[in-house]
């Protein structure tokens, strides 16, 4: 690996020479631009950054980043990233996937990546639709959705991506959205800083096939009442301080702070508490605020580190490589 002189990048240094070809108004643009803004702040040499994606509108992302990149095949980016990270643990690897790519065809690789805890960052652009194939329901679409492939309404109960990630023993789980650039950048930064697989669900508007899917979480007027911004150590309040969440037994309960409920009784956000994280992931109903931010974080050994350690251990235990003696094996004989 080349030692690069410390560079200060600007956002545009991360912009490739390829024309961006998403539909005008697509939420992907905002994510791209926040990514290009965040990277200079992270201080990673450009040549050490790799974007790996599957297939989907979202998966075109690598083409637009002036870094190394691979637009692989549908659903397999987590596996590609695993191999790449094992090959070169110094790289900063970003997996870009969609709700179809990551949870439909690629759900298994994603789950295995999470349990193994390979130190890569996964951004799942969830637009609750298959964009690139022009609008079929996805595994995150609500049941009963009318789409091209479900003219009488879809039958499938959707995945809850955060619960799925937690159930797969993810060590970092967060949620953010395309329309809140500051929040998005903060989450991206936290994801990169976490050692282990960072799973970030990004709500992304597909204005062509599923416009407004997340409107209540982004619309100026509605978002306060429908989103819950998580801050470690802080009580869970929303609706501009009017409401809060407390834990009643094992169940979350929305309380009206105006009605004399005290901040002190509220649930304090602790991203290291797995049960709280699980409860936060289950805030998924229409009358519950949707949690945004860091849901869960845990320190755990990373896969590629364990693999590197094993290579070292092997050199200690077995000895240095010696091809001639390896080929000779234990029982050789000479014919003369």
């Amino acid at each position, binding site marked *: *690996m*080349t030692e*690069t002189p410390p560079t200060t990048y600007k956002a545009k240094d991360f912009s*490739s*020479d*390829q024309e961006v070809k998403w539909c005008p108004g697509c939420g992907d643009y905002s994510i791209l631009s926040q990514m290009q803004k965040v990277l200079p702040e992270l201080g990673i*040499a*450009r*040549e*050490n950054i*790799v974007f*790996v994606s599957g*297939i989907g509108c979202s998966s075109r992302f*690598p*083409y637009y*980043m*002036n870094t*190394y*990149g*691979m*637009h*692989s*095949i549908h659903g*397999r980016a987590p*596996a*590609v*990233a*695993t*191999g*790449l*990270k*094992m*090959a*070169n643990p*110094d*790289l900063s690897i970003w997996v870009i996937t969609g709700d179809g790519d990551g949870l439909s065809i690629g759900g*298994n*690789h994603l789950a*295995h990546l999470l349990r193994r805890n390979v130190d890569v960052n996964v951004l799942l652009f969830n637009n609750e639709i298959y964009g690139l194939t022009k609008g079929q329901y996805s595994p995150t679409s609500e049941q009963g959705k009318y789409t091209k492939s479900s003219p009488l309404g879809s039958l499938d109960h959707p995945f809850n991506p955060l619960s799925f990630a937690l159930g797969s023993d993810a060590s970092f789980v967060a949620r953010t959205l395309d329309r809140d650039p500051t929040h998005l950048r903060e989450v991206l930064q936290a994801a990169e800083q976490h050692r282990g697989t960072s799973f970030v669900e990004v709500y992304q508007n597909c204005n062509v096939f599923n416009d407004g899917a997340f409107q209540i979480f982004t619309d100026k007027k509605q978002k306060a009442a429908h989103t819950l911004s998580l801050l470690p150590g802080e009580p869970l309040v929303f609706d501009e301080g009017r409401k809060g969440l407390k834990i009643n037994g094992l169940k979350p309960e929305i309380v009206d702070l105006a009605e004399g409920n005290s901040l002190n009784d509220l649930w304090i956000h602790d991203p290291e508490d797995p049960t709280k994280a699980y409860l936060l992931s289950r805030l998924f109903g229409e009358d519950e605020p949707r949690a945004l931010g860091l849901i869960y974080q845990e320190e755990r050994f990373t896969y590629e580190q364990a*693999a590197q350690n*094993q*290579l070292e*251990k*092997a*050199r200690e*235990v*077995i*000895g240095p*490589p010696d*091809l*001639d003696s*390896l*080929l*000779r*094996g234990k*029982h*050789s*004989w*000479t*014919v003369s």
Partner: protein
Amino acid sequence: MSDQIQTLPKVTIHFAGDSGDGIQLAGSQFTNTTALAGNDLSTFPDFPAEIRAPMGTVAGVSGFQINFGSEAIETPGGRPDVLVAMNAAAYRKNIGSLKSGGVVVLDTAGFDKRNLKLAGYGPEESPLAQKPDHLQFYEIDVTKLNREALSDLDLGRKERDRSRNLFVLGFLYFLYHRPLQPTLDFLRDKFESQPVVWEANKRSLRAGHHYGDTIEALTRYRIEKAELPPGEYRNVTGNVALSLGLLAASVRSGRSLFYAGYPITPASDILHELSRHKNYGAQTFQAEDEIAAITAAIGASFGGQLAVTATSGPGMALKTEGLGLALMLELPLVVVNVQRGGPSTGLPTKTEQSDLQQALYGRNGESPLPVLAASSPADCFQTAFEAARIALEHMTPVILLSDGYLANGSEPWRFPSTEQLNPIQPPLAANAPHDKTPYRPYQRDERLVREWALPGQAGLEHRVGGLEKEVETGHVSYHPENHETMVRLRAQKVQKVAHDYPATQLVQGSKDDKLLIVGWGHTLGAIKVAVRRMREKGHPVAQLHLKHIWPPAQDLPALLQSFPQILVPELNDGQLIHLLRDRFLVAAQGLNKIQGRPFLADEIEDEALKMLSND
């Protein structure tokens, strides 16, 4: 019979017994000792499909065949000269294939009522009472003799019986004049920490040997050293040789090995073997499935490693999408298919050559890639090394075909020294100066090979992907003419791999012969024996064996077209033959066997003679 010594040019012994009887151990010890004694040899184990099929039944019989001699040994032998049968089921399964005049060594304790019944003999049948009289029998109550030999050891009956295999092995060592020392050494290494077990095993071995010595009227055999080319030898199975070939290629290319695999019979042993050599910086990744294995390998290849994945049957089906990606990306990748009986789950523990067409054509779109086939257990080393060389130097995925027979079979291998292995030179990109011109990852050299620029190299940042790409820049391109150009460039790049081949050599015979037998894969040995025999009888038969199946050698058409008759024996319903007919319009005929087991040289000889006489 008197205590006489007979010198034989070669012998085939088939060990058979229950899965729990230690047949594989006895077989591999006999092999090891025989190799050290300087014979040429070839072996083939035959496992039951179940982990442990029901004891005493025919389905549960485990077999191990060794063919060894003072002359060149090409196959594990067809019909055995000697059958070792530890029980009635083993006897029943194998007695029919023994050569006339052959020898049977059996443990009479394995022929009691229970065992006869389990083996499927009727209540009235008594195989030992109705022995074929053209055979010679050693009926030994091994179980009893062995128990007696160990009577004073602090071991239960079950534990005592566990070393029955060593008793028989000792007896065979006596019969064939083999030294005990190599096996005694092995036992020490294995059981040093369990002194009683170690003692039991040693005693059983010696007791068997001694038994041979004490019974009278015994013919013993001598097999002289083989005249092998001088050099250092070891015995090796195909899967181990293949693993070593990959490690050697890693050392000689300076690229760390990244092996990703998902367990599957008969490929799993490559994963097992490689995971023992992490001191070479070789990483092994046991993936969640074959798709993850190949795509992780692609990731590692993008990262600059010698990436390899191996599988079999259904696993190969799953890798085809990834193969297409690797081909489109033009990244080095070795995909090993240790073929087994198909289709579908098929016959997992049996051997077959029925995935050749899949290797050639089994991808969507125009997607040619080099296909190589190994022809013997030891040849798996060279073929793996060559596959890695082609992948790395030509920036392409390569399919290497092995099979269950090569994977588990063994033979002496004159292993090379490091310097005898040519260095492998992947087209690594030089570090770029920090100017602003975007890197062009799909520029090509005169062999049409692109550079390998690795993440971490400043100034070479670039993006690759599975969409069609523009010539040179690699940008996504939907342009019609560009697509045609790229399809042809990728095809020509693969064709140019053939420029590296040495001139095609016949294995036996010459262009003046009338019949050419063309083979690929593990049939090399059986065809060699058949052709040798025919040539000795004066028949004009030549032999050609293909290691590089795609792209074909440039001198192949002329060679093939010079023979009036061509026979293509394959362990499938005809696959290579279709390539030859199609590409060279030769009216080749097939000889096909689809039984999950290798050809006998006789079968090939019969067919060839028929063709010659029909002419």
